[in-house]
Every structure is written in structure tokens, then in C-alpha cells.
């Protein structure tokens, strides 16, 4: 390890990766501004009056973010921030054309999101320091999940009780809970992964690890699932389950966890289908949306119409009709994206997520520290699978489970949480690019690179 580290030179202080990032960010601003102008032209043949301020604010925010990354994480991956900015920008343009009233809020949330990104980078000096607070993360995660259940502040909307209202601000604590739980899983698995990888107990024909080590994580996962099923937030349940499974598997390197987990999922899903009307309804709509195209299946059918309308090349930004349906700017935004930009644009968005996943997992692979590895994997899996779950739902590849499309959908909590994820990934990326100091604090955490 030392030999490898010695051969890796400290990157030049000029931080060429930040210059790359800056160039990409400028491109993002240009693309977003272009899309914004086109969408406005498509709607009423007028240049948007506020294009100047809009451009300046967007540019200023991203430049500020670049300045901060220059100072605190100069060697971090140059792709992640521009990709997040691109998705955020295109999402903003789409939201503006779908519902102008949301535009102001979304731009404010974007600013807050980038603010959270900066704060995270500044406050978190070293990602693996976060491992120390693992049980705090667990409590925070579970607490956030329970929050909407509280009578005074919880808000129910569209059958789901996942919002919290505090004064004028409404937010979805679940979006933050997922980050907290990823931190907890990474911290916990850092300690217990070897124990969990050992099979000490026999349960029938299979060997299982000591339940003593297994219990906390199972508890956290079970509790979160239960809460979310109570709140009818199926998308988050599925995402948490996936996160849990993926992190367990990567940490222990035991494929049996995947097998057992999938089995558990099948059992749980069957139970949920039998026990909950709303789950059953989702599956029925997925199987045959034409049973009730004007009622229960209205959204999914309209989404299919929108995407089909877009065809290969799209109808053009802002040129589509104004068909209204619930959650069009949040869960269903991908359908409108596919309508306006066509298969070409929709594929580009999927590729953008693939690039984020690629960058995130590359960071995980390059990290020398297990906690960093696990956290980077978990956070990347969160973004990657969240995008998959909602796009698969909208395109009827899977039953629809409402969840936001990271960076693109309308919604402050989602934006802020995802920008925090990007900040943490950049922090880990920067550290992975540093030479390892022997005998420094790095060795305090038990570190073992698997053979």
C-alpha cells in the first residue's frame, strides 16, 4: 500500500480537475439557458424577460460551488457537480414550463441545495469522521422517518403521509433519512462486516451469522420499512431495501445476502400485496393500465401518451400541450422530459445518471478506507437506484412507486439531500486522491484491504 501511495504524486496545486469542472459548469449554464430560452419561445414566441438575472444567478451559484471545491476538495472528481447541475437545470426548465408558479420556489431550493452542498464540504473535513456518529445517524434516520407521523406537523397528501410542515416550509424528511441511514449502514458495517461475513450459526440447511451482530441493522431496516409502509411511501421503502441489501453485500462480499434479501423481498412484497389495498392497486395498474384509463391509471396512461408523443426526437421544449395531472412536476417529470426531448433526450438523462453512478462507484473503488468505500457505494446506490425506481415506474417497467427523480423533480428536500450526497462523494473523492500518510489518523480506523 505504501509503495502504491509513494508512486502517486500530489496533484498540482493548479487543480486541473477544478478547471475541468469549471469548464463543464459553464457548459451546463449555457445548456440550461438555451433550453430555458427555447422553452419560452415554444410557449409564446417571446424571449423570457428574466433570462439575464436567471443566467447570472445560475452562473454565480455554480461558480461559487466551484470556488469552494477549489479550496477544500481540489482533487475531487470533476464530473459529479456539473452532472448534478445539468439535471437540476433541465429540471428547472421543465418545471417552469409545467407550472410557472413553482419556478421561483424551485430556483430558491436550487440555491439552498447548492448552499447545503457548500456547507457539507466545509463542515465535513473528513468523511470517515462521520463514522463515529453511526448510532446518532441511526436515531436521526429513524426519527426523520417517524416525523410525518406526528399529528401536529405531519401532512398527508395524495394518500401518502410523508411531508412535514414547519411554519411556511414543507419538506419530506424521508429524503434526509436516506442519507442518515446510508451513514449509519456504512458506520455499522465498518465494525461488523467481518463478523457478518462469518457463518457461525446454522439455521436449517443454511449457515447464518450471529444474530447478535445482525440485529441492529435488521432492526433499523425493518423499522424504516414498517414506517414507510404505514406512510404509504412505497418508493422509499423499495429504495431503502435496495440500499440495505447492496451495502450488506458489498461489505460482507457474501452473495448469500443477496439471495436471502431477494427472498425476503419476495415474501414482503407478497405480504404487502395481500395486506394493503394501495399496494394491490399499484400492481393492478401496472399489470393492466387500460382497466381504468380515466381513473386509477390516469397518470400512468397520460405519461405513456406523453412519451409516445415525444417519439424519437421529441416535440421540442415547451411545445407540448398543457395536459394536467397530479405529480407531473415531481414523480412524473421524466415523462414530460421524454416528451419534450424524445427518446434521444430521455436517453441522455439516463446516461447522465449512469455517469453519476460511474463516477460515484469509481470513487468507492479508489477509496482506501472501508468506511469511505461503503459510504460512497451507499450514496451512489441511493441516487442510481432512486432514478431507476421512478423511471421504471413511469415507464411501467415496474409498478409505480412514487419517489422523486434526483435533481430533476420539483421538491426542495430531494434537491438539498441529493446535493449533500454529491458533496459527500466529492469529499471522499478528494481524500481518495491524497497520498496515504502512514501512522497518521488514517490508521486509527481498522483498515484492511481485502485480498
Amino acid at each position, binding site marked *: 500500500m505504501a509503495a502504491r501511495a509513494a508512486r502517486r504524486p500530489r496533484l498540482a496545486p493548479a487543480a486541473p480537475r477544478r478547471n475541468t469542472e469549471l469548464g463543464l459548469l459553464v457548459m451546463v449554464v449555457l445548456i440550461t439557458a438555451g433550453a430555458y430560452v*427555447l422553452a419560452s*419561445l*415554444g*410557449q*409564446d*414566441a417571446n424571449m423570457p424577460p428574466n433570462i439575464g438575472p436567471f443566467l447570472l444567478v445560475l452562473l454565480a451559484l455554480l461558480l461559487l460551488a466551484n470556488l469552494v471545491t477549489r479550496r477544500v476538495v481540489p482533487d475531487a472528481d470533476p464530473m459529479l457537480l456539473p452532472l448534478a447541475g445539468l439535471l437540476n437545470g433541465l429540471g428547472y426548465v421543465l418545471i417552469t414550463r409545467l407550472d410557472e408558479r413553482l419556478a421561483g420556489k424551485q430556483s430558491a431550493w436550487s440555491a439552498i441545495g447548492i448552499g447545503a452542498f457548500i456547507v457539507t464540504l466545509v463542515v465535513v473535513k473528513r468523511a470517515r469522521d462521520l463514522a463515529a456518529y453511526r448510532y446518532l445517524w441511526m436515531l436521526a434516520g429513524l426519527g426523520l422517518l417517524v416525523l410525518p407521523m406526528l399529528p401536529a406537523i405531519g401532512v398527508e397528501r395524495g394518500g401518502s403521509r410523508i411531508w412535514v410542515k414547519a411554519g411556511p416550509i414543507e419538506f419530506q424528511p424521508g429524503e434526509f433519512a436516506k442519507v442518515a441511514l446510508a451513514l449509519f449502514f456504512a458506520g455499522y458495517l465498518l465494525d461488523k462486516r467481518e463478523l457478518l461475513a462469518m457463518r457461525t450459526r446454522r439455521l436449517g440447511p443454511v449457515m447464518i451469522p450471529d444474530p447478535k451482530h445482525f440485529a441492529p441493522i435488521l432492526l433499523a431496516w425493518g423499522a424504516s420499512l414498517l414506517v414507510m409502509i404505514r406512510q404509504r411511501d412505497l418508493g422509499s421503502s423499495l429504495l431503502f431495501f435496495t440500499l440495505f441489501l*447492496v451495502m450488506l*453485500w*458489498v*461489505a460482507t*462480499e457474501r452473495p448469500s445476502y443477496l439471495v436471502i434479501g431477494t427472498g425476503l423481498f419476495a415474501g414482503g412484497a407478497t405480504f404487502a400485496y395481500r395486506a394493503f389495498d394501495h399496494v394491490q392497486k399499484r400492481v393492478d395498474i401496472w399489470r393492466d393500465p387500460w382497466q381504468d*384509463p*380515466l381513473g386509477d391509471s390516469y397518470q400512468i*396512461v397520460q405519461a*405513456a*401518451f*406523453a*412519451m*409516445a*408523443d*415525444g*417519439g*424519437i*426526437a*421529441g*416535440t*421540442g*421544449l*415547451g*411545445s*407540448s*400541450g*398543457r*395536459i394536467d395531472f397530479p405529480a407531473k412536476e415531481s414523480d412524473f417529470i421524466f415523462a414530460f422530459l*421524454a416528451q419534450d426531448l*424524445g*427518446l*434521444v433526450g*430521455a*436517453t441522455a438523462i*439516463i446516461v447522465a*445518471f*449512469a455517469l453519476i*453512478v460511474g463516477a460515484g*462507484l469509481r470513487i468507492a*473503488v479508489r477509496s482506501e478506507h*472501508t468506511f469511505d*468505500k*461503503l459510504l460512497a*457505494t451507499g450514496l451512489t*446506490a441511493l441516487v*442510481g*437506484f432512486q432514478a*431507476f425506481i421512478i*423511471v*421504471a415506474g413511469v*415507464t*411501467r*417497467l415496474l409498478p409505480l412507486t412514487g419517489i422523486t427523480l434526483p435533481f430533476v423533480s420539483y421538491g426542495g428536500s430531494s434537491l438539498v439531500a441529493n446535493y449533500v450526497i454529491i458533496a459527500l462523494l466529492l469529499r471522499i473523492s478528494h481524500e481518495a486522491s491524497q497520498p496515504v500518510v502512514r501512522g497518521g489518523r488514517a490508521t486509527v480506523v481498522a483498515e484492511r484491504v*481485502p485480498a
Partner: protein
Amino acid sequence: MNRQIRRLGVAILVCYLALFLQLNRIQVLDAADLNNNPYNSRRAQREYNRPRGQILTSDGAVLARSEPFDGEFFTRRRVYPENQLFAHITGFFSFNYGLTGVERQYDEDLSGQSFSVQVNSLQDILIANRENVGNVTLTLRKDLQAAARDALGNQQGSVVLLDPRTGEILALWSWPSFDPNLLSSADRKEAQTAWALANLAEGKPLLAHAYRERYFPGSTFKLVTAGIGLQTGKVTRDNPVYDQRQSYLPPQTTKAIANFGGETCGGTLFQVLAVSCNSAFAEMGQSTIGAVDMVAGARSFGFEQDVPIDLPDAARSTFPGDLVDTPNPPKLAQASIGQNDVAATPLQIALVSAAVANHGRIMKPHVLREVRTSEGKVARTYTPEQWLAPLSEEHAATLHDAMLGVVENGTAFGLGIPGYEIGAKTGTAQLGNGLVHTWMTGFAGPPGDPQLAFAVVVLNQRVADDATGGKVAGPIARRVLQTALPLKR
């Protein structure tokens, strides 16, 4: 752990690949099905919001245009500045009720699809505001259409005025009409109300009666019978000479066909046409000509055929073809004077006169003059074409002269306008309930140059008021001709 992380990466990529395939299914493979799904109003809505060209008359009046609109669903609306006047020609452009008339017939030109060859969508992103629409200029004139409307007044009926040399329709009016603005309203509630009211209203205002409704043609059909007689050589100027009588009794019946007002009439073609002699024409069709030639002849004039007019859903005029296989002399005799199962659109009757005026040839009737691009360039022009040739030049000339006689000293006396040559034929179709449809059809123009053919029908006139084609429809035709004839054409 790195192996697992890489596998995770592969797994997520596989998931995304599945998304890509699913997107291909929706946006490419199944796209056509989804776009045509009856629950899908998306395309219609976008079509509705697209820029759309104007419809204009040949004398420059705007009949339909699109203007920006800030509605709940729509960003444009279609406006018809002439309200009811051209409703049956332009039709309407309604989100709820679709397209009719010129809006439907020339939709591709109006929406700019016909000659821009579907600008592909990638370019549309760059040129988001597509203004390459076609403006459609019609052969109709606003002054003549208004003259037809004013002349008919609030009586139910139709006026057709066309150029027999080209088939250009100059006026095509029927009352009751409707206001297409209401049906094309961007306010869907308003459109629904207008639709419901129009469907309840008396006289079917939504129907373009002039070319989509059939009526008993009555004595105007005698032109067809006479034409067939001449063309088959069975009737000439001088032969046969029909007996002077009050009625004609066909074989196999006791029900005689009486002359109008119980008068006695007979004689040669010119004589019997001038006074519209029922007994003579019943005998001519039933006995002189016979079923086979009558059926084929009616067809040669356009009966039992689809009219190649450039407006949607034109009605076929009818003549009982079963007379060939199941001989029925009484029915044939009645059909020969435009009764029984004979029914014709006002347009068809005008085309019969047009054949006489245009040397025996019927040109395809049309309303399109030309399509121009937004920049004013002519994209295409309607080229007149012949549809039918029921008469030879010689026999057309004979019938032409016979029709002049009807105006000079026959039932259309009073239609004449000094300085012009006008030939005509009246019709008074008995409905059997004390009501008649009164007709007037003919041609007009400077001597030797019949430039206009026309048909006027006024519906449901009371026999008790002594209503006849000459008395009721004649003055209406004359008023329209007075406006039309002086125009330099």
C-alpha cells in the same frame, strides 16, 4: 469489496439498459398505437395550438384566422370574422368536434404540413415557433355570398352560384347556418353548449344543405330528361310532338300525372319545356326514352355518383336505378318529372345547368383557388378538370336555346336582365302535405357567353300561397345575378 462495487455498477447499468429498451418500446415501437389511442387527446390538443393559415375569399375577405389566446388548455383560437356567412364552406376547427369543411379538406395546407414536408422535430427544437403555414384562397366571393344571403333572407333554402367553364364555386349559401366561432371556442363548455343548441335547432343549421342535403328536384329534373332525350336521339327540336292534354296516364296504373293547375299542354320540346308540361315529360321519360336510357342518362349528369367537390361528405343525388331490372312505368313516369325516388342536392341541379352552359361538359366543382405560403408565394393552384360530359356540343346548344325560351315566354318569365342572356328552368316539387320546394336553376352571361350557372331552392313553401319556382325562387336568383353579372370576370 471492489469486485462487488464493480458488479454493482454493472447491475445498475443493466437496470438502465432495461429502461432504455422500455423507452424504445413506448416512444418508437408502440408510439403509433399510443398516439392513436382514443383516450389520447394530446396530439389533437397540440394540433389545436399550432399556428394555422388563413382562409380567404377570392375578393380578399378573411374567413378564418388563428390568433393567440391565453386559455386553460389552448394557446390559440380560431376566429371566423364573417360568422355565419361562410360557415358551411370553411366548416369549423373544434377541439371537441373535429374539423369540417375547408378546415378539414385543406387541413394539411392550413397547418403547413403539405409543403413543409414535416419539418423534423430536431429542427423544431431550434425553430420552436413554426409559422410555415399555408393560406388558402377560395373561389368564393364575399360580395356574391352576401348577395345570396340577402336575397334568400330568413327562408330555409340554398343558393349555388358557379362558373360553368371552370367549376369554380362563387357562392354557396344555405339557411339556417351557424356561427363557427362558438363551436371552435377555446372555452370547451361554450363549444359544448353551442353544439347542443345547433343540434336541437330547427332546419339542421350545422348541415351544409347546398351540397350535403337532397331534395325532390321537381320540374328542374325535366332538363335532365330533355337532355337524355336529345343525347339518345329520341327527342329533337321538332319531334316528337306531345299531345295536348291535361294529364298523362302511364301503363299499369289508374293514377294519372296531372299538369300544374290542371292546365292543358303539349307540343315540341321547346314548347313543353317553356311551360314545364308534366304530361309531356312523363311520357317522354317513360315512353319515348325508356328506363334503361333514363337511368344511364341520369348517371351521366351526375346522379348516383360521388360529386368530386373539394369539400368533405358531399351527398350523392339519387335516381331509382331499380327501374331497369324491375320495370315500373308509373314510377318511371314520375321520376321523369323529378318526383318519386329522385332527389338532388342544390349543387347537382346547378351542375345540370352548368352542363348546358358549358357545351355539354360538367367541370369538377371546387372551392379552392390556390394555396399560398406565409410569405405569399403560390404553393399550388387548383387546375380545373372535366368531370362529366352528358351532352354533345350540338345537343347542349339545343337545350341552351330551349332554356332561353323558358325565360322569354315560359315559367321563368321575369328572370331576364337587360343586356344579358339568361336561360332557366323552374321547379315546384310537391311534398304532398300542402308544401312545396320551389326551385330555379339556369345560366346567365353576356349574349353567347354563359359565365354563370346557378340553382336556388326555397324550402317548404305553402301551396296555398300559390308558391312556385318562378314566383319564389326566381326573384332570389335574379337578385344574385344582378350582383354577379356586372362583375368583370
